[in-house]
């Protein structure tokens, strides 16, 4: 999302930064504020923009490297804008032996993106994870908070279609 562009919640980025400031103020002087503030930032913007890093560093009086170090350590945080739907393919051992890699290949083909990238329509971001703790259901993928179990490469198209449709329905509702 570039400067001035509308984001999904209808605020422009400047407005979001103001809201971020309010959030930081509410966490100020609380120990361990950095991670909750970053979580709020990630939810607010869909990623952690550089302006937010500077703001958080200054307002929480934390060194810039610490803020950036935490962001890049946890896969939950992203420095780049993510799509509306974050697809995470489990590449843990159980999923892997059940063919997770083929699922990943199928997703890459279907979406025409690589790991970490976002589709041009900003709908999907592709990512991988290492074991979501549901090995009995392997192979699994997660789309935002939804878990899809026993996924087959051939079933990928259907799953994606459902989310595309969901978006279309939503847009109809909005208009």
């Amino acid at each position: 999302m570039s400067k001035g562009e509308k984001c999904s919640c209808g605020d422009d980025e400047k407005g979001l930064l103001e809201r971020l400031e309010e959030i930081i103020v509410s966490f100020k002087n609380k120990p361990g504020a950095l991670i909750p503030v970053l979580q709020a930032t990630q939810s607010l913007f869909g990623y952690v923009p550089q302006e937010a890093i500077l703001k958080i560093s200054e307002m929480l009086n934390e060194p810039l490297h610490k803020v950036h170090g935490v962001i890049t350590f946890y896969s939950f945080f992203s420095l780049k804008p993510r799509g509306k739907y974050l697809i995470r393919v489990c590449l843990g051992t159980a999923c892997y032996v059940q063919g997770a890699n083929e699922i990943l290949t199928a997703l890459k083909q279907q979406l025409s993106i690589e790991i970490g990238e976002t589709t041009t329509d900003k709908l999907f971001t592709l990512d991988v994870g290492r074991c979501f703790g549901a090995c009995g259901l392997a192979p699994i993928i997660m789309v935002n908070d939804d878990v899809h179990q026993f996924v087959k490469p051939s079933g990928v198209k259907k799953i994606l279609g459902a989310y595309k449709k969901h978006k279309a329905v939503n847009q109809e509702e909005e208009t």
Partner: protein
Amino acid sequence: MQININNKSFSAQEGETVLDVAKRNGIYIPTLCYHVKTGQAAKCRACVVAVEGMRGYQTACNLSVREGMNINTEGKEVKEAQRMVVDLMLSSGYHNCLACDRSGSCELQDACYHLGIEKTTFSDHPTGRKDESSEFIVIDYDKCIKCGRCVAACNHSVVNEVLGFGFRGLETTIMCDDDIPMGDSTCVQCGECVQLCPTGALTDKKSRGKGRFLEFEKVDTTCPYCGVGCQLTLHVDRAKNKVVRVTGREVWPNNGMLCVKGRYGFEFHDSPKRLQYPMIKKNGKHERATWDEALDLIAEKIKTTVAKHGPDVFSALGSGRITNENNYAVQKFTRAVIKTNNVDHCARTCHAPTVAGLAHAFGSGAATNSIDEILETDLIFVIGSNMTEAHPVASYYVKRAAQNGSKLIVCDPRRVDIAHWSDLYVPLRVGTDVPFLNGLMNEILKNGWQDEEFMKNNTENPEDIKKWIQDYPVEKASEISGVPVEQMKQVAKMLGEAKKVSVIYCLGITEHTTGTDNVKTIANLQMILGHLGKRGCGVNPLRGQNNVQGACDMGALPNVFHNYQSCMDEKAILKIEKDWGVTGLSRTEGYKLPTMLHKATQGETKILFCVGDNTVQTEPNTAKTIKEVESLEFLVVVDIFPNMTTEYADVILPDVCFNEDDGTYSNLDRRVQFLRKAVDHPGEAKPTWWIMQELGKRLGVDLKFTSANATWEDMRRSGTIMGGITYERIQHLGLQWPCPTVQHPGTPILHMNGKFTRGKGLFSHTNYRTQAELPDKDYPFILSTGRRLWHYHTGTQTRNSVGLENIFPEELLEISPVDAKKMKVKTGDMVKATSRRGTITLKAWVTDRSPEGVTWCAFHFREAHANVLTIDAYDDVTETPEYKACAIKIEKVREGVEVVNRGFRQARP
């Protein structure tokens, strides 16, 4: 206790680690992530050893010794384990020593050498990633082993908090700020990371390719910049007569840490611009002369002028930049040969109020405690000090103390960078220190937070001050200082309840027309709180220059001989006359620096002998100073570079600089430290003591200065508080005065147990007086002045050293965002700043360091320096000028390229 390493018994002490004992006994254990300053990390695993009765391998760096422990560091399996760790490290990145500056001083190379590793048995993973964006530091990521020493150094040693670890797993990397190039980051380039890096990952850019560590002669000496007096090692290329690299010595006062100037601002010594030959002004032009011609001319001029008009038409200036020996030489010459007390130096422009104020209150005009004690204090109260820029290494200790839990209060009209580490930042109005501090004392006494015992036993007039301070209720103080009542009460409470308070101040206190009163008020505060004469407390002025303390100690002052022996005290005079073998020393106090200059316009000062003082650029109101200097009959300047003052000189004499002669400096905590000759001087430069000796000879007095050491010994013979300090004693470590006998261990803390030098402490009444020139309709802004991290005083050293000027190439006028908005000025625009005394044109820096109505700039750049604008109004006791406040107006001249302030902890936009 006894422990066994490889079946040999060694004695060890409780709390030691296996690595400590092994190191002490010459047993090599590879170690990479551990450094005594960054502490135990136990992450590189290179130091694994086998311990009987313990499973697996143990890391020696964090393994505490136990009685009877059996340790094996040499067994085949142990070595194999160590070898595997180092082998894996070698396979990360690309470790090729062939063209590496650190070859021969690399701990990874040492490990490979000792373990017999020629190359990794795995494959290299070169990325070619290098960061050369910084002016002074190169990061070669291929040589980084992620030991974390640089990160620990940056965050916990110097506490600049720039370097960190980013990303995870195999991608883990060190990074600056939010993973931006080092040169764009908030890095202040102190080089502590370079000093602690065990490999060639972080190296000094300017010494790259000029030779490896082992090729140079190492000369231990003292830093020639600020008053902290950092100990450093010069790496000297003897054949080229050049300093190639500077490293910090791991001893007090700096413990290896340096700042950008100390570590990277060293090339000035062999700048082609150095003065190399005596010059005599003929027909308005300086022409090369021989020493004999120059000295004969000066001697003749002095002889005839003094014979005709008396000795008081002669004045001399020593300097806070030159050695103790040279200051002593200047004052002895002035007093013993000319027979006048007209000798002074640049402490007049900075800390003279400290000397006067503290001598009045305590009997001794110097810092009471040592720098290292900052780490032991509970509350650090910093007032009027931009220490991260002016005394960077002292600020590292303050920041570290704050990080370790000491409370830090910063009071300053400007939001100076140290405020970012403070618990409480108190923005008071410019020049309101007296009422602000009085208000605090009122509140402290009202709540019974004072140290009643200390006041009763150790001060002269406790009841008097209690009664008098009632005139300053906190509400009144708040109204004057602009600090909210609640905040004042909070500060008072923090001060009152802390067990140990150390007050640190600098020129924000002294450079006012009320400078001496400001200092006395600080003394009052600490006497009320009883935080004097014990560890971790005290009144600690940060003396500005490398040897401004020493210049005072040496008697380059119009009222005292060396070691503060009064020039009006007949007993002292007789003693010194006898020792010097002269009679008829002047019994009247000499002129202070501003008076010397002022008298020039009245024809009462005819000759000024100026050593190491760029008077024209450093005195306030340059236009006036020029007029004064022009009215002198004869001006002699001894210096290392041509500067604004040499232009007016009738004779210029070339001086040697800090690494061209032996000598001593006294630092801000009264530590007399040694400096050594490391290189040969350029051309025909001579030390000042030699010049004074030669002049003395021509005027009929043998001053007995045959060497720096002989000069020091001459001082010591009639000295008091420094009488016990000899060159032999300070070869390795400095000694803090008072040190009256050669057996005396030196005095880290003055007034121990509240026994003041003057007997009992004396409270003073200090009342609020406004600054000399208040802003008005025509000149609506206050201009305050000071120093920048990247430069030093009139820039003769820093602007003649490669790199510093690339970082900070021109002076900037700091303007608050509020004022900038009103004037439609942005960072980078050219503005004209005008006071009633002059105009300078410079770039604007819009920054919230400055509060509304206050602007700020320094005097480093002769092209646009603050002293064109500053006011020639002086402290009434010491004649210290009010550099910290005058009134100016600002006009925008033209638009500039917009520069965005990035980050918030940095000394530049």
